[in-house]
């Protein structure tokens, strides 16, 4: 119990640190939303009018920083995230995020879990059959794929499967805009075919890490005495592989899963940018380009919360899987 409480404390502290960073970075750096708007409206609207408009959306640069900061923290927790002051001027941030989030969750979320499960399985088998054909080819290949830049793999896939085959797979946007959204076979098919290339990109670049760490953990675990003991007891090899070796080897990988979410988010930004996929990564890119504080702050908080929630879930899973962690807590 104490363990969980300590983790909760860490959760809150990190969230606070992220929110604080997020509040002060934009305010201490050059670049000002009013300037950005003046540039974007090409001076057709006067600076004063623009500033007034932004103020009505909750942008108050002249207010005391401490007051702003306290207000900001409160708003972040109550879900009162304000209105966009960038490209999508005046839209509530919650609405923008609500529109983009399902696409990212569907694409990046499913692909990440798939990569983790598949990678862990392949790594388990490869570490178990030490010296087998699988084990000889896999490590070098996946050392290479895990070091490839996300966006480059995306560009390559576009070139081969979209440009090279005359538009065989779509490489733009999340569905064919000529189809009316709904639960029709045409729409679902369009959504799926638009997800193939971005999902493949993410899978190719992330799966290698899981395979390698799982394989290496397996090899270290297989040398443990309890595995030898299980063999001596005459247990079936399947049972030893999953119940004894993999169960222990997966523990460091689980912690890695939560940490890697940060990397997945970075991949999502680049991949969504390459494929013009309207998820939250693309939204963040646009928010940054247009100096859209409210949107940026809300998105950055979401990213941090996502990693923290994953970390907490992993902690709980570890306690459940590993009796030693239970005894310690």
């Amino acid at each position, binding site marked *: 119990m104490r363990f969980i409480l300590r983790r909760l404390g*860490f959760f809150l*502290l*990190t969230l606070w*640190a*992220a929110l604080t*960073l*997020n509040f002060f*970075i*934009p305010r201490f*750096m*050059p*670049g000002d939303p009013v300037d950005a708007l003046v540039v974007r409206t090409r001076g057709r609207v006067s600076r004063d009018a623009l500033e007034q408009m932004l103020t009505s959306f909750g942008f108050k640069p002249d207010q005391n920083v401490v007051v702003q900061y306290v207000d900001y923290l409160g708003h972040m927790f109550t879900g009162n995230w304000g209105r966009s002051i960038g490209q999508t001027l005046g839209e509530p941030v919650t609405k923008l995020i609500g529109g983009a989030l399902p696409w990212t969750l569907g694409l990046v979320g499913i692909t990440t879990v798939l990569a983790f499960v598949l990678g862990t399985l392949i790594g388990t088998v490869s570490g178990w059959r*030490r*010296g087998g054909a699988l*084990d*000889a080819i896999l*490590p*070098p290949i996946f*050392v*290479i794929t*895990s*070091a*490839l*830049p*996300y*966006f*480059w793999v995306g*560009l*390559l896939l*576009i*070139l081969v499967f979209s*440009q090279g085959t005359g538009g065989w797979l779509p490489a733009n946007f999340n569905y064919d805009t000529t189809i009316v959204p709904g639960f029709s076979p045409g729409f679902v098919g369009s959504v799926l075919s638009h997800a193939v290339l971005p999902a493949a990109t993410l899978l190719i670049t992330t799966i290698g890490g899981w395979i*390698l760490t799982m394989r*290496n953990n397996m*090899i*270290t675990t297989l*040398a443990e005495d309890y595995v030898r003991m299980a063999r001596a007891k005459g247990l079936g090899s399947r049972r030893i592989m999953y119940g004894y070796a993999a169960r222990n080897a997966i523990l460091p990988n689980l912690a890695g899963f939560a*940490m890697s*979410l*940060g*990397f997945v*988010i*970075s991949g999502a*930004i*680049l991949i969504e*940018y390459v494929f013009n996929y309207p998820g939250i990564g693309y939204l*963040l*890119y646009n928010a*940054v*380009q247009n*100096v859209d504080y409210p949107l*940026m702050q809300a*998105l*950055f908080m979401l*990213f*941090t919360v996502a*990693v*923290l929630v994953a*970390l907490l879930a992993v902690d709980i899973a570890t306690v459940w899987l590993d009796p030693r962690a239970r005894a310690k807590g």
Partner: protein
Amino acid sequence: MTTTAVTAPPPEKAPGRTRAGGGLWRAVRGNRKAMAGAVILLVFTVVAAFPGLFTSVDHADEANFAPRLAPSTAHLLGTTALGQDIYSQLVYGTRESLVIAVVAGALATVLSVIIGVSAAYLGGLADDLLSLLTNVVLVIPAFPLVIILAKYAGKGSLTVILAVLVFTGWSYGANQLRAQALSLRNRDFLESARVRGERRSYIIVCEVLPTMTSLIVANFLGAALYSVLSAAGLQFLGLGDPNSQSWGTMLYWAQNQQALQTGTPLWSIAPGLCVALLGVAFALVNYAFDEIGNPALRPVRRRRKGA
């Protein structure tokens, strides 16, 4: 007194090949992955140092040629939509990309050594605070932060990109180094140094750090890989200096001019391949380091052949 202190520990404790540079080199040479990575790094280093040897074009970023030429003997990889020679741009772009990787990787490693080792060595409250700081930085998603920082710090000059990468790239290494330094803390050779009455700074620099060399090198490689990929991603998104000569900037202009869709795919594929190769080189050497440090991970085949 001091010289004997430096040379005394290895025979009794022998923390391995890490202390002798020659042993390390032999281990790298014996490992095919490490060799491949080292060769790629060497080639890029030579190109970065002497770009003039590899191309006759002096000002690679000037539009001196007809746009969208196909690859030929005059233009090995063709020309861009803006009329630049792609091959010579690649050659001249090597330097900045390599410098970012090495400098950001090295500075991040120095930072993680300072924070990780002092956390472990100081212990108590200082350790709690430093490891909390490390964990917080580790958890906060780096790339969105990098984008935001780079955007606000103005069109990312080289210094801005380096600072941002170092600021976000040190925490992973600090965590690992702290763990290893903690496990070293009660070893006999450190105890004997303490009994000899050596200063703390001397113990950390001359006794603890040399024992940790292999992990520090591994961390440098990891940080360099992170820097290569993040810097390329940043520049690709247009958050670098659009006038700089680097692979990331080439990728930005290629994307900007829709290179894939307008028949100049090499413009964006070639610099991407270079980024990938540089990343792969760091990753291969890093993985080989794992194998060297932990013989159980080495490929089984080779061992059979050697026996």
